[in-house]
């Protein structure tokens, strides 16, 4: 979340899309309800979902859409806003939209490469310039782009469109043909309300209500927020769905302001923190890039990854003329290098020296390029191929949660050994005696370790709003269970014993690993989470000036490139005060923010440096005054500009950089800092050339689509015998997996009357269960509420297949089938898409074959038995949310 939960109450319009917040984040509705019931200007709530949910039941506007058509919907909203902007007079335009924000804080006015060609170019329909199809068989990406023509025309100092900056235009032709805003119009010109209805199934009149309500948040001082979750991300173009939201929010000036933002609702209690700690194949703690084989030295790494772009990009003609370019700051301070060196010191401490490159080569290096995928999907394919032979699973249950779950279960049979820690016996741990498996032919050794639950240990977790909160121990772990911290500590000490006496590249990283977490008393024999937290925050590794070895650093600004500091994760550097107070334990219940907008900055601590709303420099005008007087996030204190440092006193939240406001710095002849400090050009990306499949989202069809032709791009589907996806119909860069032929992949036949997969299937969760179920399917109170897996469907479909409410039905895809209780409801309606009647079937994925509550079919009835092993073009997140299926009475 750019913002945080309580801040929802400050919003004027809440758009919930790709999320069912009332069911999956129930307490969020405390603040949604607060916004909707406040006395003055109550907020409107919009729910966009294929199914009418508990969230929809509270919405002012419910907009049904076909699963997987978010880009058509959002693209239509973008078109509505652009069309509105263009048709208004200059004065009305400036009243209804925040044109200063749009032109000065985003790249809307910047000029793109003269040879850029959009997806409507007849020589490459549905695709941007620079595409090459991948001719290798799966697994792999469908294709890839050369992005050389996607950048700014002048890469170092992009030009801007003067007419746009001056609000001096009437027609699109008044703007430079390669100006971002005009290219945005061209990208979405065809996304008319008629087209939106045809593609998404949302009635035009409803769609127009949504547009009108949401566009109203574009006025200066108004704020709209987007709440999204896995309904957005779990598509082959999930990243581009979010890009669509970002563009919409930037057009309306909704990022950085109270009641605004792009708010990813995190599904597990510490998935924010576990992501920050980077239990992910492409990053090291603090989102530092993983090392690839081409980067043999620290210097090469820092040069390539840490100084991307080499110098900040400075757009011409904007009021601001300086980018902080935080990641890639290339002047005196090299933040990227500081963070990595401090991490290496935290890991190898005294063994990491300037002479040995701070043990840089102890970090494993992946293969550069696309010949290996190390993400979840790729890992399971490597397991299926026998490349991965041993696996440690800590509190995860991929046998229920992974795509093509039965395929992934089967892949586990190839392992030599598997170690699982969990609270309960999981489907993953029990894969070897699941239905259909023959234990006598499975040679995998399996270890199942009993873990402590959340209140049987202590430590910090970070919520969706980035608040790191300490939780305490209420009682000792059950039986002989141990915390995962105690287990990993004991395991590493064992490994050190095993490698003792060995030397060389295999043994050195283990033997030299700094590992010293025991303290006195309760933690004499196991790791003390308080001590681990201190290492994450960081301290001095030697005396520096008035700092003594062991003194805590202030925060990441104190970190150094010379090895004099350590910090396990720079983002969390700042969680402690220098005298050792752990701010994650802070419980000051007073809201001291400006106008009490609900920041509660004294309650717990959030990264970075307790900034509660990120990008908050965009919440003020060029003079530093809040756009919204009622909900000010930060405000420039008049007269506080310090000419020597070019900084000032900001009131309210921790400002996104302490520099003075743009106009104040400029008047003083100082560099005027642009608001989006993490971007190289200092302004936010409406135009985003970093994504795999294009600088702007295009409405592609899901991997398995009910259509023969993409109704937006006009590109036909690939429907021959061995379907493999079609760039321009499908996402051209999506990841096409292959679990060693264990399960059929590819596009099944929609029309075949006997074997046709003629429904759109989707997976989701219910309020009463949690993720892969191991932490709720053993809880009688929750099982009572939701005892069995369900398959929700509309009355029209149920009639067609002869199913009545409460019947057991079978849902079948090319991967497999599950049985579930039919919930026949008007809340799922048949849609007309193009010339087709499309029905949805929705299945939760919580259930499995272990625990107190099991599925109906022996395979456990998880919805993920049905989902394909394909993934997003940028992240490989699996396409859980849309697939083709059919329903039968069981």
């Amino acid at each position, binding site marked *: 979340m750019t913002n945080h939960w309580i801040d929802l109450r400050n919003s004027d319009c809440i758009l919930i899309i790709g999320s069912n917040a009332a069911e999956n984040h129930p307490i969020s509705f405390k603040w949604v309800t607060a916004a909707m019931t406040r006395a003055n200007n109550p907020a409107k709530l919009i729910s966009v979902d294929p199914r009418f949910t508990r969230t929809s039941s509270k919405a002012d506007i419910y907009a049904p859409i076909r699963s997987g058509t978010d880009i058509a919907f959002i693209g239509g909203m973008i078109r509505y806003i652009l069309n509105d902007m263009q048709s208004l007079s200059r004065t009305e335009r400036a009243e209804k939209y925040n044109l200063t924000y749009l032109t000065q804080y985003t790249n809307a006015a910047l000029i793109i490469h003269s040879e850029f060609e959009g997806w409507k170019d007849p020589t490459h329909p549905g695709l941007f310039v620079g595409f090459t199809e991948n001719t290798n068989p799966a697994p792999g990406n469908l294709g890839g782009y050369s992005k050389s023509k996607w950048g700014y025309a002048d890469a170092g100092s992009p030009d801007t469109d003067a007419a746009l900056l001056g609000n001096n235009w009437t027609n699109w032709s008044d703007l430079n043909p390669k100006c971002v805003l005009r290219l945005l119009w061209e990208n979405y010109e065809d996304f008319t309300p008629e087209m939106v209805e045809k593609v998404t199934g949302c009635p035009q009149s409803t769609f127009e209500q949504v547009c009108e309500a949401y566009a109203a948040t574009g006025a200066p001082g108004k704020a709209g927020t987007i709440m999204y979750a896995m309904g957005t991300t779990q598509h082959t173009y999930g990243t581009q769905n979010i890009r669509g939201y970002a563009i919409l929010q930037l057009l309306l000036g909704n990022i950085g302001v109270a009641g605004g933002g792009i708010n990813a609702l995190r599904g597990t209690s510490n*998935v924010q923190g576990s992501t920050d700690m980077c239990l992910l194949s492409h990053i090291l703690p603090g989102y530092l890039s993983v090392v690839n084989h081409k980067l043999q030295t620290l210097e090469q790494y820092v040069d390539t990854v840490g100084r991307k772009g080499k110098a900040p990009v400075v757009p011409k003609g904007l009021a601001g003329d300086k980018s902080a370019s935080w990641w890639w700051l290339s002047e005196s301070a090299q933040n990227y290098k500081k963070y990595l060196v401090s991490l290496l010191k935290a890991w190898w401490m005294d063994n990491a020296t300037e002479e040995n490159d701070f043990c840089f080569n102890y970090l494993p*290096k992946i293969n550069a390029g696309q010949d290996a995928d190390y993400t979840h999907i790729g890992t399971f394919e490597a*397991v299926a191929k026998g490349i991965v032979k041993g696996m440690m699973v800590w509190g995860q249950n991929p046998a229920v949660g992974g795509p093509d779950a039965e395929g992934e279960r089967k892949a586990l049979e190839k392992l030599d050994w598997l170690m699982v820690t969990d609270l309960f016996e999981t489907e993953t741990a029990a894969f070897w005696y699941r239905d259909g498996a023959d234990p006598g032919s499975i040679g995998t050794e399996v270890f199942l370790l009993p873990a402590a639950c959340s209140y049987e240990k202590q430590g910090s977790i970070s919520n969706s*709003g980035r608040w790191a909160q300490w939780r305490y121990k209420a009682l000792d772990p059950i039986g002989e269970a141990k915390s995962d911290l105690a287990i990993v500590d004991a395991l590493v000490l064992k490994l050190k014993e095993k490698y003792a006496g060995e030397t060389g*590249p295999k043994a050195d990283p283990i033997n030299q690993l700094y590992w010293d977490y025991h303290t006195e008393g309760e933690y004499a024999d196991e790791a003390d989470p308080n001590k681990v937290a201190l290492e994450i925050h960081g301290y001095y590794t030697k005396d520096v000036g008035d700092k003594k070895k062991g003194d805590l650093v202030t925060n990441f600004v104190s970190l150094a490139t010379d090895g004099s500091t350590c910090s396990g994760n720079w983002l969390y550097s700042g969680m402690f005060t220098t005298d050792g107070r752990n701010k994650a334990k802070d419980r000051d219940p007073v809201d001291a923010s400006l106008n009490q907008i609900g920041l509660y900055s004294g309650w717990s601590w959030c990264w970075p440096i307790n900034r509660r709303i990120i990008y908050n420099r965009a919440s003020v005008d060029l003079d530093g005054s809040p756009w919204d007087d009622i909900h000010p996030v930060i405000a420039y204190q008049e007269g506080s500009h310090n000419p020597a440092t070019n900084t000032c006193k900001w009131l309210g939240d921790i400002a996104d950089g302490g520099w003075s406001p743009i106009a104040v710095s400029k008047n003083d002849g100082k560099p005027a800092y642009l608001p989006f400090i993490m971007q190289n050009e200092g302004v936010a990306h409406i135009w985003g050339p970093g994504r795999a499949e294009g600088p702007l989202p295009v409405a592609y069809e899901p991997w398995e689509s009910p259509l023969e032709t993409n109704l937006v791009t006009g590109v036909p589907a690939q429907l021959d015998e061995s379907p493999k996806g079609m760039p321009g119909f499908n996402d051209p860069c999506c990841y096409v997996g292959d679990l060693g032929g264990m399960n059929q992949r590819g596009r099944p036949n929609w029309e075949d009357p006997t074997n046709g997969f003629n429904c759109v299937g989707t997976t989701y969760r219910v309020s009463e269960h949690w993720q892969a179920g191991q932490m709720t399917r053993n809880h009688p109170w929750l099982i009572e509420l939701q005892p069995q897996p369900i398959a929700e469907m509309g009355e029209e479909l149920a009639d067609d297949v002869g199913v009545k409410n409460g019947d057991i039905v079978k849902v079948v895809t090319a991967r497999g089938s599950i049985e579930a209780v039919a919930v026949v409801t008007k809340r799922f309606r048949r849609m007309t898409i193009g010339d087709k009647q499309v029905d949805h079937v929705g299945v939760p994925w919580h259930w499995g074959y272990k625990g107190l509550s099991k599925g109906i079919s022996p395979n456990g009835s998880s919805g993920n038995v049905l989902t394909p092993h394909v993934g997003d073009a940028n992240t490989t997140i699996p396409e859980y949310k849309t697939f083709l299926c059919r329903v039968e009475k069981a």
Partner: protein
Amino acid sequence: MELSRRDFLKFSGVATAGGLAAAKMLEAQPVSAESLDLELSKPIGEVPTICCYCGVGCGAIAAADADKVINIEGDPDHPINQGSLCSKGQALAQMRTVNGKDNPNRLTKPLYRAPYSTEWEVIEDWDTALDMIADRIKKTRDETWLDKIDVGGTSYTVNRTDGIAEFGGGELDNEECYLLAKMARALGLVYLEHCARI
């Protein structure tokens, strides 16, 4: 800031959470007439925790004795949830205690399944379990270790193993996740993932 009694108890709970919990020996009883006028039928709880389910981060307060949970409900001081919890949060107690007894499905000892076996066997002590696991890790790691790879005739140092994957976990504490990342990278693992990806 003036501390309320509740706050004071919580702060002292911070220091002596275990002791405080152990001190709450009141037996849980169904509501009965005797308690109508005066006493709570059980303690409400003073040990602050954060709900383990979704990413909202609601505060809860727990009352427990040495081996069972007596009550867990919302933390009224917490600014996000202000005492409220959803159905899952309200069921937190059953993670440990069901009908006054240990949740019978919780794992309490390390288990081992031998190759081709049809059953779990209990490993009697942790040291043995971790010793066995460390042996497996070392064997696989040593057998699959890559000092260098050859790409287009050039040799590159990579110092990694493709033979071991580590998964998890979005429910673990930050400190746990951090040490898991540290261990994995020190082992040379490149297949490191968790539920944030999916």
